[in-house]
């Protein structure tokens, strides 16, 4: 099964210059290679801070876009890695090795299997 690991962090903490944060950042670039070597890696990208982002919507056929999200949130989504794992516990174990797990939080979300029924809410 595939799982998306959504990496969240406080920009102030990660880029604030602490030795621990700098060490984690230095390891980040190489972590994709570790996941490739172990065969878990599917795809992944790190994200620029949300100030550089746009948010759009289409309503009644008309698109509108705003800059941001300028949320007051302290944690931002900073990267996405999609991995292949046997089950949720293996995905959690693999994600726990990511350097940013020691600085921010990682949400592990199963990727939708479209052959399965939609959720009923």
């Amino acid at each position, binding site marked *: 099964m595939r799982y998306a690991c959504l990496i969240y962090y406080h920009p102030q903490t990660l880029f604030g210059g602490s030795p621990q944060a700098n060490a984690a950042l230095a390891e980040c670039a190489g972590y994709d290679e570790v996941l490739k070597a*172990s065969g878990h890696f599917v795809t992944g990208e790190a994200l620029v801070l949300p100030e550089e982002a746009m948010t759009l919507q289409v309503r009644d056929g008309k698109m509108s876009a705003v800059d941001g999200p300028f949320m007051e949130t302290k944690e931002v989504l900073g990267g996405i890695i999609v991995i292949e794992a046997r089950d*949720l*516990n*293996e995905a*959690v*174990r693999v994600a726990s090795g990511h350097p940013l797990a020691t600085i921010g939080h990682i949400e592990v979300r199963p990727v939708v299997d479209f052959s399965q029924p939609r959720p009923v809410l």
Partner: protein
Amino acid sequence: MSVAGTHACLETVYRTEARRVLATLIRLLGGFDAAEEALHEAFAAAAEQWPRQGLPANPYSWLVSAGRFRTIDCWRREARLAGTLPELLALSEQTAEPITPEDIADDELRLIFVCCHPALAPDARIALTLREVGGLTTEEIARAYLTPAPTIAQRIVRAKARIRDEDIPYEVPDRGELPARLESALQVIYLIFNEGYAATQGPSLTRADLCAEAIRLGRLVVDLLDQPEAHGLLALMLLHEARRATRVDANGDLVLLEDQDRSLWDRGLIGEANGLIGRALASRQVGPYILQAAIASIHAEAARTADTDWTRIVELYDELVALAPSPVVELNRAVAVAMATGPAEALRIVDGLDMAGTHLVPTVRGELLTRLGRYDEARAELELAARLCTNERERSVLLGKARRLG
């Protein structure tokens, strides 16, 4: 070998060998996380090398040594950076001796005892056993127990942390500790079986799988430990399993024991169970599982309900009450007494039971009063039972009986 052929072959090897390889790697590498990573690495190496080199003569040994080698190699690189190489060299030297079938079996048994350790929460023991010993995925366990996958995943994460933090040893308990630890392991296996057997909601396929897995675990323990109660539990599960097909009718409604089509019971399983019970009883170390199995076996042997040896069943219940007293066992004994001696005697036993709040006592009282011809009292008891009962199907059966009393 073709790519598709190798893939199918790897799948087969994964199903048959992965859990046993994991059990050994946990011992060699000293922890679940390292062993699971090593198992993954070993299969990744197999996927790469087997198509070129062919299937190894002994896939288990190949996978254990590949997993162990890759992990120690990785630790060595890290240790070189951290300057702790000498300790690691010591680790990589040991356990190079060949692995015998007995060693493999011992590792599986160690894994069962760790997963069923009494220091872990009961829910966690079940989830951990199903995943680590049974090889089910977290998602499969979640579906079988109708529980969200993150809840099951959390139980497994916490249980592993507890095993690590409390340094729970990876070993088969010694003679002094064995009875209590075996009891916990057998209880986990029986709970897994009952979850599969109970006619609650949920996809029937995964539920039957739980029964099959519990029986497999029961056989494993019996093969590895010559303990009468392990034989008793396996026999008990086999006897229930023998009746599975007749337990529910075409509408999915429960069929009572006396109404089941006995010609459809699986004689092969019943024969195997009787052999186990015979051996267990011969050991003279009689425990609750053996007694329950012996009772189930008498039901299985009777060609018709009327042929059942109720007197022998009452004797076995007497032993069970003395060994493991509980109101439910006393109530079952009362039902057997009603068949062996008569409803009046049974009613006296039931009246002495302290089991307020469940539908079980009024259900039995309703039956006994009906047989005594006291229909008004019987109807009131059956209606009370229907009010207390939480299972819709059972409730409608109770109300149907009450209505037939006029």
